[in-house]
């Protein structure tokens, strides 16, 4: 039997817009994944500690405030510091195309911008899991 994929949906920073994060959390859950949602205003440290503690396969972060260049790479950095190298980290939100290559270089496997269907995100996760599901 296939193991259930565990996902941490996280809102880093001070941004309060979580419609997207919640819709995606629910879509992932309806796709059979186990989803933990952090709630608002999480520091990168809190996100990493929740990810490790919950032993998730995927960390999915959402930012609409423009702080992504600062906060997304901080999460991958901290994961690396903890020796975690098998979590898939993805991001989404209002993120200019120009910023995406930099985020990818920092270890964000994919960036989903406004209008992305939840189906694409589900498929991406299934195809790109680092741990064997």
């Amino acid at each position, binding site marked *: 039997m296939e193991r259930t994929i565990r996902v941490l949906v996280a809102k880093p*920073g*001070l*941004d*309060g*817009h*979580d*419609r997207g994060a*919640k*819709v995606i*959390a*629910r*879509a992932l*859950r309806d796709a059979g994944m186990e*989803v933990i*949602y*952090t*709630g*608002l*205003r999480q*520091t990168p440290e809190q996100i990493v500690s929740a990810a490790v503690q919950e032993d998730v396969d995927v960390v999915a972060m959402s930012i609409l*405030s*423009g*702080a992504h*260049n*600062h*906060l997304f790479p901080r999460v991958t950095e901290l994961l690396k510091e903890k020796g975690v190298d098998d979590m898939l980290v993805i991001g989404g939100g*209002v993120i*200019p*195309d*120009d910023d995406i290559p930099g985020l990818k270089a920092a270890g964000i496997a994919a960036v989903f*911008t*406004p*209008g992305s*269907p*939840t*189906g694409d995100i589900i498929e991406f996760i299934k195809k790109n899991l680092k741990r064997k599901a």
Partner: protein
Amino acid sequence: MSDTDSIKKGFEAYDAGVEKSVARFPERKKAFVTGSKSPVKRLYTPLDDAGRDYARDVGFPGEYPYTRGVQNTMYRGRFWTMRQYAGFSTAEESNKRYKFLLEQGTTGLSVAFDLPTQIGYDSDHALSQGEVGKVGVAIDSLADMEILFDGIPLDKVSTSMTINAPASVLLAMYIAVAEKQGVTPDKLNGTIQNDILKEYVARGTYIFPPSPSMRLITDIFAYCSKEVPAWNTISISGYHIREAGSTASQEVAFTIADGIAYVDAAIKAGLDVDDFAPRLSFFFNAHNDLFEEVAKFRAARRVWAKVMKERFGAKSPKSLSLRFHTQTAGSTLTAQQPDNNIVRVAIQTLAAVLGGTQSLHTNSKDEALALPTEDSVRIALRTQQIVAYESGAAETIDPLAGSYYVESMTDRIQKEAEAYIATIDGLGGAVKAIEKGYVQQEIQDAAYTYQMDVESGERVVVGVNKFQIEEGSPKGLLRVDPIVGEMQAAKLKELRAKRDNKAVEKTLAALKAGAEGDANLMPLILDAVKVYATLGEICDVLRAEFGEYQQKVIL
């Protein structure tokens, strides 16, 4: 045969005929629904007017129940206030944008603050990193506020400030800047959002738990009714509830339920309803479904008027009339083919105007991608000006009144909103309903349904799930220089070195004592602001006293 009988007969004949032709040539869809997924009939006729009494339910502009508008001349007297929400980076940069907007014919200012300011952190706080100046202007102290309004006469403009948890602090700074310009508080016009309940459910910039938050709000009501009488002390907001995914009826219902909670709190604090209620204002969203949105605004006025009269016994007409600001719907803007957003905003503008708004912000076409550039802001403002000066929509009052469809939908939204309000009453009021997660769950369910309808193609979003094209990356987006954080931190360092720190300590100690007791906190905050205590320092005193709100996470 009476009129009704003959219409009924005619309708039955029409309906029988149409059923026959539909059997041969089916309509585009099996079921037609509004933007909020309410059923839409093929045809509305005078038969749908049954049960509505014109004098009781519709009435005249400027008269109870205000369905047709809150003033007796509406836009024939003057247009709505064209108020573009703006602010980014430093006070210097935002001051330039305000002056640009005023030159372009905007008639009121609307200040966007960055997230650290909205959550009561100074720019050099650890949690502010990466956020300074991003979604609005960074304001740390009165010194920034002086720059923000430099050269803008505060007795001549009206200013709306989107600030909630620390609304008292920013209002105090505004009063202090005005004083330095020689403008007394009684000459000030404007609005603070000051609506904490929708922060808990939809917008997220809360600081304190509900009970002390309600105290801060009622302190403002009491203070302003004496000292700043023309100020709108709150903007009870459905905008963000709708952005979070609610339906039109939920937007009306949850906003008015929040309004009821504020009025209840103020009355409990000993205020007379007709002393503060005239300064309550509202803020709604304008979506794409033109007729449903117009009906929503009309229904909202009627529901509020009834609540104020019947539940609270308000007497002043100003307490009964729901005045509102509108913003076009950010959530309807698409990152794909962004020029199409200009058209969406035009439809939404028309909805707000036909719905009788008192002021309006029109979104810019690039807002699904970034903060707007000057060019896109100009188009957004021009959209309002075209509707005002060229469309004819502002020449008569409430032009859609009497439309069988719009009147019927106004009744429906009123009914649905009143049913929700009754449910919330049953849960113990808006504060309790929020603490239980009821409001959040209702909004999230609607948001999820909408998203699934888009993904199944049942709901078409042009350029997103139909009529897509290959496009390159958008060019020329506005970017906020990340150096802003360092600049603000340097300013703070300098400020703390040169201000009278003894005076700061003294006023903060007085504020602490006030917060421990039950003094009105507004004058104490004003004292602290005037000696350049920072926003973060003031909020820290209150955090220590009041504690912080812990979000109820609902999925």
